[in-house]
């Protein structure tokens, strides 16, 4: 597109804004549409081929007993019935997914907010700390999980070696039914806390200084200022971070697969791990697809709920 093109487009816009009457769409407009399609076509094609078609395929697959080991047949809602009424492991996985989310979200948000407040000052070298906390976000989750698997190793793991210095016999972190999930939660928090921290940092820097000034003149304490100025002002960001973290936590898989492989026993089975186990270890693709769709609806429902709740506790939204 050349400069005159841009100018023409601007002129057109002005004319419309000025209420100078609607003109038929010009040739230029149509050719712009053409360009737009051309530019997004790789994305659209990729989406259709690699996302939409497989999703529809999985939807149909969830009504069959498709398995790699035998021919498949249509079985209606049997897979869903099995999940809801006959499979205790499915419910256990649901429970553990919620346990993971319930552990991860508050920890992640509080830590991210704390770090953001702490790092939201202009002192030399602060960039280094911000970078250090953000680095794990751009690290591969598999590498991260493997490194932490070694750190939490029972013998010759870093943590237990340190405990050894104080003559404390460290537990078998990843082989303990009570400890495995909390360890995975902590490792996941450390991995992703940087992302929320950056969101909060950006929000904090957007809060106009004059509000604090006004609060100070009114004699508000530091903590009052935080709860009555800072928090309401950044509530849209908190809400955004909450939704992102919730959806991410429901989809947790890699760190579980690498660090515990669902174990010990089935104590770290979460929904996506269970889907993987059913599909790629037992080859029951039909049932795995059904669980995947149940997860899909769970995410959908929770997101809609949160979206509706936002009106109640987001006080300030542009």
């Amino acid at each position, binding site marked *: 597109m050349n400069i005159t093109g841009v100018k023409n487009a601007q002129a057109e816009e002005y004319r419309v804004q000025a209420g100078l009457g609607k003109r038929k769409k010009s040739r230029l407009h149509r050719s712009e*549409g*053409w360009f737009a*399609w051309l530019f997004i*076509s790789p994305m*659209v094609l990729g989406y259709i081929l690699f996302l939409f078609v497989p999703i529809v395929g999985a939807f149909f697959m969830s009504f069959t007993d498709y398995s790699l*080991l035998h021919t498949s047949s249509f079985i209606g809602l049997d897979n869903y019935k099995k999940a809801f009424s006959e499979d205790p492991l499915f419910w256990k996985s649901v429970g553990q997914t919620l346990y993971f989310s319930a552990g991860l979200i508050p920890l992640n948000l509080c830590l991210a907010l704390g770090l953001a407040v702490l790092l939201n000052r202009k002192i030399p070298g602060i960039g280094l700390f911000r970078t250090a906390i953000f680095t794990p976000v751009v690290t591969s989750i598999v590498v991260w999980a493997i490194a932490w698997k070694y750190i939490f190793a029972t013998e010759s793991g870093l943590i237990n070696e340190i405990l050894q210095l104080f003559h404390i016999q460290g537990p078998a972190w990843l*082989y303990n039914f009570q400890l495995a999930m909390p360890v995975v939660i902590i490792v996941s928090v450390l991995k992703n806390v940087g992302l929320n921290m950056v969101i909060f940092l950006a929000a904090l820097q957007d809060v106009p200084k004059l509000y604090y000034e006004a609060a100070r003149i009114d004699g508000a304490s530091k903590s009052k200022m935080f709860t009555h100025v800072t928090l309401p002002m950044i509530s849209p960001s908190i809400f955004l971070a909450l939704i992102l973290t919730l959806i991410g936590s429901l989809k947790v898989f890699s760190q579980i697969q690498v660090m515990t492989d669902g174990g*010990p*026993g089935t104590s770290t089975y979460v929904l996506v791990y269970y889907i993987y186990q059913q599909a790629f270890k037992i080859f029951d693709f039909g049932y795995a697809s059904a669980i995947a769709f149940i997860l899909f609806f769970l995410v959908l429902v929770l997101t809609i709920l949160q979206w509706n709740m936002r009106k109640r506790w987001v006080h300030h939204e542009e």
Partner: protein
Amino acid sequence: MKKGATIIMSLLLMLVMIAGCGTNKTEVKGNTEQATTAPEATEASQKEVTLKFSIWGNDTHKQMYEDMIAKFNEQNPNIQVEIMVIPLADYQQKLTIMQASRTAPDIAWLAERMIPQFISTDALLDISDLKSDEAYNFADIFPSGLELISKGDNHYGIPFSTPPSMIYYNKTLFKEKGLVTPTELYIEGKWNYDEYLKAAKALTDSSKGIYGTNLIRNGWENWPDALQTLFNAYGAELINKEGTEFTLDSSQGEQALQLFSDMIFKDGVHPKPGDQTTFDSGKIAMQKELFSYMGKAKAVTDFEWDIAPLPAGPNGLGTTLGYAAVTLFKDSQHPEEAIEFLKYITNPDNMTITSQYFVPSRKSVLESDAFLNQGPSAESMKLAVIDQMAAAQTLPSFKDWAKIDSNMKSVLDYLYSQSGTVQEVLKNADEAITPLLK
């Protein structure tokens, strides 16, 4: 909107055309190559072919095959063979998925527990025709080894490795402590689990991180490999022969599992779950391993070692037999070339070469001096390998193995994490496995 659709259509068309051009080109290239390099070529035998060959072995095994392939290419310059190494823990899973997506290798190693699945899904090529191939000498292969890979009169592969499990022991550590070695005890007829435990306790030195023994090889998730010899030695059976009933929750099963649990948690002579200490580090005094470990053991220079049979339990030695066969996938585009390669790597000459790591399934090779010289000494080889072959049993294999394996693994975690007693673990195992056997 209509416009958008047309654009998408035209883009799709373009893509198809590009793709089409691509394939056309290669085809043309292939044809001309064939025409110029081998004008007198008559049939498929001279076509350029690449075969995929999957194994779970280590680098030394891969290198051995690569040397073999180089020689194979002297006679068959048109057949290239590409080796794929897949870790044992993922092997069955990966192959099943490759088979479903029609990308399975042409030739594949299969272990005993994978075979029922691939035979029942009709994935393997019948190679019974080899029986009439005189040069190949099919009759030389132990018939007992063929049973697992056959159904009726059809044979689906050639076993190439049937190693009995055994103990690799660190002779230097035994000498330092002035202990009688397993070999000596075995010759005296006293090599049993009591003596074994006594030795393990004497050899354990936690200040140096030395463990008396280790039954785990290939990772903690590979429980049948670790435990089946104990089950056999104590006369416990995981699942009955008919595959209809879980039978490990017997007093024998309890005894066997209790011994294992005590070695780890009570006596501390065995590494804890998740620990990956290896024999070649010098920190394991007695390691249960297979003959195929020989390559790695031979690389050890820090200490002396030897091999001995497993100790005896109330029910005898309980030696298990590892099992691996080379098989061909039915979906192969080049079955003739694949058979050619299978014949080549399992012929007597090459089985002699593979016998440096794999206990051969050919009588002529097993009984040869060349094989006896593959171990630390001919005497040890006779005691730990040759003499054990007749009584050793292969690991159990059942049709729904993936599910049994997965459930049993989960249940054993209660033992490994000390969250339940042996009795409770066996009760849970019964509840987890029995529904799968119906």
